[in-house]
């Protein structure tokens, strides 16, 4: 690997380190602060499970973040991660509780603004909504679990010492689960921006373990988190103990479990598939803030007890953090990108062009976006998503979903299906009929991504999307993810 690549990744590692130093305290802070679990034990368990969570189930939440804005040059990814880390560091210094999730979303928007990319409003709304839902959900879970634990302990009548022993084991288990969820949910914050420009290739170890390029990236980020846990989290853990509200060890256990369940819900692909296959609405996979989940759970327990002892100014702090962090992060990113591009002469984004060709307008018409909207735009080319949207905006007004479709269909992304690249496809991921259909298209070139998708679905049922109902959601998602894999692989 080139030195330059490592240099660019370093900002992601810095962000990972900051996350490890701060967020590990959410998982093990009370346990270590009250001396129920030794720091060494906590750090070891935390590191192992963060790495497992990130590598095994980190992809779900990263996907949503990628939708918000695909940072497509390593220089841009560097600055996005760097500005998020800088914002987190600065806010922590001032003493305002922050989350890496909010910081990274801010810096992606900063990158979008700089590269004249259009921010996907739907993805943004989805992410921001979960930020509000996450602490509320944690509060409800915390309160219910607290009540339940109270009832169970009332029946069990455990000896103080026995309860102590169980609580220790409970804290270690909950901490392991919490670390796994933290890794799965928050690795997207650390390494998500590097996914579209990942410098790694697939790695196989004796046919036993296969790590995709994204998994290698996540592994590296998780190791950075682990280093953060070992080098810096002890101090934070010891101070976080009684930060919000005095809690007993059992209360601490309830908080950690609620926090972990919330993070897990927003990261678990497995749960999504169970819900979808039963026709139930799915939970969006979004990186949420572990600090806010913890705060939510503590407040939930506090409210259950009548609201005494809660420090309400902490709530004010969270809201301030919510407002300020993304803005600061976006600003640092925007200014930083300017310097990186103009002073250090680095490529911070790959320009993407758009074209309203007859073919595109025809396709949009099929999608029920009438060609009447685009009559004056036929044949026009635009150097950025924003320019296209401004031109469309002068003609007509579209909903944000329709705008998204226009951007998707008009994006020029030339690709060529070459037989040697087909040979290198992961046969475990793509099915036989899918690869067969691709082979039949070998040698052909396409100007737009969707042209390949259409051609494939004509070739084979295996590439066809099913009607949009909840039960089909997962199947369609799988096909779409494979298509995106193809777009990356066969890009000219």
């Amino acid at each position, binding site marked *: 690997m080139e030195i330059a690549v490592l240099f660019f990744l370093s900002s992601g590692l810095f962000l990972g380190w900051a996350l490890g130093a701060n967020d590990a305290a959410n998982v093990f802070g009370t346990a270590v602060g*009250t001396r129920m679990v030794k720091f060494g034990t906590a750090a070891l368990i935390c590191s192992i499970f963060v790495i497992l969570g990130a590598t095994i189930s980190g992809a779900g939440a990263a996907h949503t973040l990628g939708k918000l804005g695909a940072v497509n040059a390593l220089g841009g990814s560097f600055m996005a991660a760097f500005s998020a880390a800088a914002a987190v560091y600065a806010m922590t210094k001032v003493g305002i509780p922050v989350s890496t999730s909010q910081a990274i979303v801010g810096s992606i928007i900063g990158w979008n603004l700089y590269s004249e990319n259009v921010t996907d409003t739907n993805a943004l709304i989805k992410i921001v909504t979960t930020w509000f839902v996450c602490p509320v959900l944690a509060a409800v879970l915390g309160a219910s679990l607290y009540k339940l634990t109270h009832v169970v302990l009332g029946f069990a*009548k455990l000896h103080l010492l*026995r309860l102590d022993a169980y609580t220790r084991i409970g804290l270690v288990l909950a901490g392991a689960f919490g670390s796994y969820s933290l890794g799965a949910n928050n690795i997207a914050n650390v390494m998500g921006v590097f996914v579209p420009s990942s410098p790694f290739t697939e790695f196989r170890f004796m046919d036993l373990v296969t790590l995709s390029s994204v998994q290698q990236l996540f592994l590296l980020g998780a190791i950075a988190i682990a280093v953060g846990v070992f080098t810096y989290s002890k101090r934070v853990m010891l101070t976080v103990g009684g930060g919000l509200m005095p809690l007993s060890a059992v209360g601490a256990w309830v908080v950690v479990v609620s926090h972990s369940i919330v993070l897990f819900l927003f990261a678990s692909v497995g749960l999504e598939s169970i819900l979808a296959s039963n026709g139930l609405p799915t939970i969006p996979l979004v990186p949420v803030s572990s600090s806010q989940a913890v705060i939510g759970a503590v407040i939930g327990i506090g409210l259950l007890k009548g609201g005494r002892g809660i420090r309400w100014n902490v709530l004010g702090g969270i809201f301030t953090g919510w407002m300020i962090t993304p803005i600061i992060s976006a600003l640092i990113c925007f200014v930083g990108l300017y310097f990186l591009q103009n002073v250090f002469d680095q490529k911070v984004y790959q320009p993407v062009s758009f074209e309203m060709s007859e073919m595109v307008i025809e396709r949009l018409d099929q999608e029920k976006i009438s060609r009447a909207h685009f009559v004056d735009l036929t044949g026009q080319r635009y150097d950025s998503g924003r320019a296209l949207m401004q031109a469309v905006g002068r003609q007509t007004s579209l909903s944000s979903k329709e705008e998204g479709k226009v951007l998707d269909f008009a994006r020029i992304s030339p690709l060529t299906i070459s037989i040697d690249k087909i040979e290198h496809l992961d046969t475990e991921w793509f099915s036989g009929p899918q690869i067969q259909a691709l082979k039949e298209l070998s040698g052909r070139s396409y100007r737009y991504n969707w042209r390949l998708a259409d051609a494939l679905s004509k070739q084979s049922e295996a590439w066809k999307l099913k009607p949009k109902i909840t039960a089909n959601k997962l199947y369609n998602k799988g096909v779409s993810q494979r298509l995106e894999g193809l777009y990356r692989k066969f890009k000219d």
Partner: protein
Amino acid sequence: MELPKMKGLFGRSRALEVEIDHFHDKLSQSAVIFKTALAAYLKAGATEGFIERQQHLNALETEGDKLRRSIETKLYAETLIPESRGDVLGLLEASDEVHGALQGALWGFAIELPDIPEEFCEEFMELGDMAVMTVESLVLASRAFFRNIEAVLDHNHKVEFYETEADKISSKLKMAIFRSDLDLAHKLHLRTFVERIDEIADKAEDVADHLNIYAIKRSI
């Protein structure tokens, strides 16, 4: 990887649980022995039976001391119940003072051999009974602190009730003593013994007061 350690953790907890139970047993036995010793003294003075009981109570107090030290050392050396160990320490030491008060009262009878006129015997016994009931309720409250936190308040309520009763009896008894025809030295001597027995109930109430706070702390 944690299996042997976990077994160790449970093993250590169980051993300590047993020691704490023993500590409570000793205090509760001492209370019963105090009662029979007092009855024996009021009936026939410092007879062999009384001395035997008094020595038995001494032995129980010494064993209680040993258990208390062993429990305290283990709690701190093995960092068990880090949040509550300060409270447990306070509880054990205050309970030890109750034990000390039982022992001290009997020592007083054995050394000073007070001459208790028959007319006061019944009330002395009543006072002794009440003090013993205070201690017995305290032992229940203290056991509940370890096993069933919600019951602590119920038992503590009884401790307070019996202590008030003991105070009433002791005031009445002292009034009767000082209004009697005994000489002043005799009156003062008897008063000391009324106060020594009443002190057992007072000390038990002090522990119950602490227990109330510890129980509230643990329910958070």
